[in-house]
């Protein structure tokens, strides 16, 4: 894993998928983001981030936990606040308590929303996620779970992302959330699954809604749309050839344009 080249964090906000036809497509390096070249790295990073214990890059991965989402946006501020709040809670039990407090703040979810289409797959607990795009093109989220700790996680994620623009939703990385983990870093893998799966679900469904919105408004599909398709065929870090038959072997999908800097 080449850490030095991927060390350079976002100097500018990453150009995430935008609903406007990108006029600066040619200028923005992201569009010439040679997907095949980067993807193995991103996938490997993703896998590595899940195996922090065993990865020799683990120390640097942990230090990257402090890197924030797109600069200068409300989302990144909220993320920063929440991260520092949890970081200040040194006792694991205090984090659990804080999460449980946040769980209580979670807005209730209608029974009608507790359907399998809204289930977040990959969690041991049941998590339902309802997502809409409002009239301003911002993402609105509601969630619920049968586990109080998972509810707490959802509550935090929603606090950060409810009302955010799609690109802000896409800009949050799972490493950013590792500070909120309940437990020591060594246990990241198990707890992170809930965070990660919920976040991934938020991001994947955001993309779907944005696509639908574009199609609905008769907009042109952005030129890199096929790349986004490809990414959604990445299943747990392995690239699947696009095929006519859709086999959903996935429990978590990679979001678009993540720069996994490990």
């Amino acid at each position, binding site marked *: 894993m080449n850490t030095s080249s991927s060390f350079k964090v976002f100097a500018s906000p990453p150009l995430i998928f935008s609903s406007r036809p990108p006029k600066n497509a040619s200028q923005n390096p992201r569009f010439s983001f040679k997907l095949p070249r980067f993807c193995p790295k991103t996938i490997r990073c993703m896998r590595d981030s899940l195996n922090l214990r065993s990865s020799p890059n683990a120390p640097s991965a942990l230090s990257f936990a402090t890197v924030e989402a797109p600069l200068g946006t409300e989302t990144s501020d909220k993320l920063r606040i929440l991260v520092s709040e949890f970081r200040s809670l040194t006792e694991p039990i205090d984090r659990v308590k804080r999460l449980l407090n946040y769980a209580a703040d979670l807005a209730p979810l209608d029974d009608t929303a507790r359907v399998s289409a809204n289930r977040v797959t990959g969690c041991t607990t049941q998590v339902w996620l309802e997502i809409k795009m409002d009239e301003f093109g911002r993402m609105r989220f509601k969630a619920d779970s049968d586990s109080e700790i998972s509810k707490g996680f959802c509550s935090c994620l929603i606090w950060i992302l409810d009302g955010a623009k799609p690109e802000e939703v896409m800009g949050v990385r799972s490493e950013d959330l590792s500070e909120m983990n309940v*437990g020591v870093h060594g246990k990241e893998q198990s707890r992170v699954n809930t965070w990660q799966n919920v976040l991934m679900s938020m991001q994947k469904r955001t993309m779907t809604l944005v696509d639908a919105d574009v199609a609905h408004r008769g907009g042109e599909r952005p030129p890199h749309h096929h790349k986004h398709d490809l990414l959604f065929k990445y299943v747990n870090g392995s690239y699947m050839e696009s095929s006519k038959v859709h086999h959903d072997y996935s429990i978590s999908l990679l979001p678009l344009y993540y720069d996994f800097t490990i």
Partner: protein
Amino acid sequence: MEGVAMKLPSFKSLAPNAISIGHRSFSRVRRSSSLSVFSAASSSATVATNSESVSLGHRVRKDFRILHQEVNGSKLVYLDSAATSQKPSVVLEALQNYYEFYNSNVHRGIHYLSAKATDEFELARKKVARFINASDSKEIVFTRNATEAINLVAYSWGLLNLKPGDEVILTVAEHHSCIVPWQLVSEKTGAVLKYVMLNEDEVPDVDKLREMLSPKTKLVAVHHVSNVLASCLPIEEIVVCAHNVGAKVLVDACQSVPHMVVDVQKLNADFLVASSHKMCGPTGIGFLYGRSDLLQSMPPFLGGGEMISDVFLDHSTYAEPPSRFEAGTPAIGEAIALGAAIDYLSEIGMPKIHEYEVELGKYLYEKLSSLPDVRIYGPRPSESVHRGALCSFNVEGLHPTDLATFLDQQHGVAIRSGHHCAQPLHRYLGVNASARASLYFYNTKEDVDSFVVALADTVSFFNSFK
């Protein structure tokens, strides 16, 4: 005592000053007269009700260094042995020994190291055969684990013998490894899967199973001891009924072989599977017991070296069982370490281990059910019903994952939460997940006490947020 190169635990090591310091229960024992501890060391394996006799759990703890540690600031209380057991130092030494002194590929070379490795590997096979009273060590096929062993039967025996309309009987309480392979194979062959549900005691209904049997039944694949319900099925009876209709029986003995005497002659099962890592052995090795004539008739599962006789460009001929089903270089060190684990268990004695666990399991059940709002799954223990030493349970209004997280974070108690690879069973019971505390012979009464106290604390913690 069977087995080769094994360090006998000498009486010296049972002396008080050799018992690990810092363990609360040991310090209690140490305060009593050292003579009584010494003389009681070889006495029965009963759960210590007084400080005079040492229970089996206390006696063996020194062999398991991993248990003597703190997690999250509390002493580790390991109650997840049904997921995987801890290994005594003799097993780790056997593994180290193999790699350090005679690591070599087996069945291939004629040089000294290879011969020694082969001897030890085959000796391990003999130990497994003896452990379950198989008639011949050739009836033991080493696999990666029980899951692979079941897949072996499914793909090798199943694909050959199952025809459209044939029936395979399973229970709703099976582990996924004894459901999914049959699903895959029934898709390919057109066989039909039938499931036995639970009766009012929350045990698979053996009467219903008997009713389900018909000449169409080709296989009955059932667990011996359930990893969720802790129930024990009457395998001998089931085998008799199944054989009457001409069906074969596969026994998933993952939760029974480590905990009690399992005699395949007595059970008269056709196939039996178990994993090493649940019986104090390393991961990466397990075995399939198959009756000689059955294995003889089965085609290969995986192809490669070792399982062949002659290889030509357009075809190959295959080796005799068990080699026919052991393609490639096996997990040699692991098999030898499994042999060492079997020696260790045999030295204590499986009847003794079982007796200890029945008592400790009963104690766990009683203490757990004394807590309010706790629902334990499976049959109630009684004179006639011996539960396995585990309890899957749910606490009203508290998700098992939250429970397990708190127990771990705040109390260092390791239990499992989730569906325990038994989703159909959980669906049947009407829950999404459960928590499970499982014991092994190195657990003690104090472990159970710590767990119950921690659980009560957990429940009151979460209640305070309501």
